[in-house]
């Protein structure tokens, strides 16, 4: 036995293992990317070209943007977009206000019953939305808020989990800062605005991004509460397009709509990649 032979063999085996690892990783990457490629590709094929391909082609030589014009003219895609934007911004803004105030009360203020309420809040984290959505649907219907923005927004403006997350963050800020501010005669609210919020900015950004993603993709509640296409969000819009938009199975136009809907979040993700992934691993749940 000579050492060199062993070394060569180990190195070869190592290289083989590495190659196999990369091979598997590339396969899964292709599985993830392929649907995106396919929707982009289909959206660039013309209607007649798409339907004449009995065997689908993996590329197109005559890309067209006609489908994108169709997506915006034949169905009110711009409307869905605007609705989703309003819904997302309003929900996120109101939620940030509500949870900041609550987290501040739990972290900084001292009042009777605080621990009890906090425990109660934590217990609420275990309640699945599916269980409360039935009554919420009846409540919103009774208040005549179906097909309105308040009806869409109100039930999702609080999140116990985010209150908890933010409270933990606020609680880490040293008390000395608070006493110093008190000595200077700063009010509690001003202290919250000027000191606590800036310090907790990373957490606030994380929460905002997670909430925006959640809002952009929400489907169930908007579907229950809106049946007027003027108030559809993109998810409901895409379902509507699939079931009775564009007439006879205009798949390229549908794919154009899908691309348009997917792009904003993908852009957001590419811009804030690190933040989003860190945020999700801290507090995201899906599946």
């Amino acid at each position, binding site marked *: 036995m000579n050492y060199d032979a062993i070394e060569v063999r180990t190195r070869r085996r190592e290289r083989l293992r*590495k190659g196999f690892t990369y091979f598997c990783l590339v396969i899964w990457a292709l599985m993830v990317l392929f649907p995106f490629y396919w929707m982009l590709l289909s959206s660039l094929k013309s209607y007649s070209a798409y339907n004449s391909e009995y065997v689908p082609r993996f590329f197109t030589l005559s890309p067209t943007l006609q489908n994108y014009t169709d997506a915006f003219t034949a169905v009110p895609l711009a409307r869905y977009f605007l609705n989703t934007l309003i819904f997302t911004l309003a929900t996120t803004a109101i939620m940030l206000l509500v949870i900041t105030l609550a987290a501040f009360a739990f972290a900084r203020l001292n009042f009777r019953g605080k621990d009890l309420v906090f425990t109660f809040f934590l217990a609420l984290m275990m309640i699945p939305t599916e269980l409360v959505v039935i009554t919420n649907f009846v409540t919103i219907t009774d208040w005549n808020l179906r097909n309105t923005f308040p009806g869409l927004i109100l039930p999702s403006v609080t999140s116990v989990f985010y209150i908890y997350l933010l409270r933990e963050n606020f609680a880490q800020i040293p008390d000395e800062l608070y006493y110093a501010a008190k000595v200077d005669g700063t009010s509690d609210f001003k202290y919250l605005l000027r000191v606590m919020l800036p310090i907790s900015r990373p957490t606030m950004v994380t929460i905002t991004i997670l909430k925006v993603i959640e809002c952009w993709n929400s489907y*169930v509640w908007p579907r229950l509460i809106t049946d007027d296409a003027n108030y559809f969000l993109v*998810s409901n819009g895409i379902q509507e397009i699939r079931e009775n938009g564009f007439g006879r199975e205009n798949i390229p136009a549908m794919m154009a709509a899908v691309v348009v809907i997917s792009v904003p979040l993908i852009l957001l993700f590419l811009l804030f990649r690190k933040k989003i992934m860190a945020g999700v691993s801290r507090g995201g749940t899906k599946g």
Partner: protein
Amino acid sequence: MEQKNAKGWLYLLPAIAFLGVFMVYPLVDVFVYSFEEGYNSASQTFFGVGLYNYSYVLHDPYFLQALKNTFLLVIITVPLSTGLALLISVGLSSIQKLKDLFQTIYFLPYVTNTLAVGLVFMILFKRTPYTDGLVNLMLHWFGAGPIDFIDGPHWAKMFVLCFYTIWVVMPFKILILTSALASVNQDYYNAARIDGTSRSRIFFRITLPMISPMLFYLIITGFIGAFKAYSDAVAIFGTDLNAAGMNTMVGYVYDMLYGDSGGYPSYASAAAIILFAIVLTITCINLMVSRKHVHY
């Protein structure tokens, strides 16, 4: 700290108001609904109190179908997706080059609209008069006959649904497992290497025990998430899931509440409570099992 009773409650007021109206009250109300027999949402009256709603739901063939579909989905997707995510994460943490790129790509499904991308999956699998679809083309390369995945046999539809569900839940699992793997103390590996421990032994004796808390967290949330599957099914088979025979339990609840077969909040409540009871039971079993096998 000085006591500020009024002020504290004032800051909490918005949160308490919203949670009270949209969380606590509904939670009580859903139980009330589920026991009110013959509830009429137009006149807001009911005949009596009892267990009829539960009995109706449990004898409804659509509910039984939904129950079966949901259990199939859970049993298939949770182990598969967790195992696959574990393999991919282990692969990811063993490389340096291109790691960031792979991680970014793998995370993409998380930030996409489930409904929108589901449409792409439907098109990939669907057979139309114009084309057999891409997946059937690939099957054809291997000599397998065309299968109608969207309107065909139940197992084919189940396959598509499971496939899509796994595709959707993978990003979260890969992310959690990769960060769990990265946080394992390197000293253990170095010590094992000095002792000449084999790779598989390192994996089963060091890696797996060290990440077991996160693995069980993923299994528990995976079970809960899979039991609540709904949007994925809608994305692929359309809103009329009962007709497609692909309804899930959450889908059944929503269909009872609203839509063509809707208007029965009592049945919806009973079904939702049954679902919640099942999820709670499974989660408790999971926690008991994890107490035996997880090393904290």
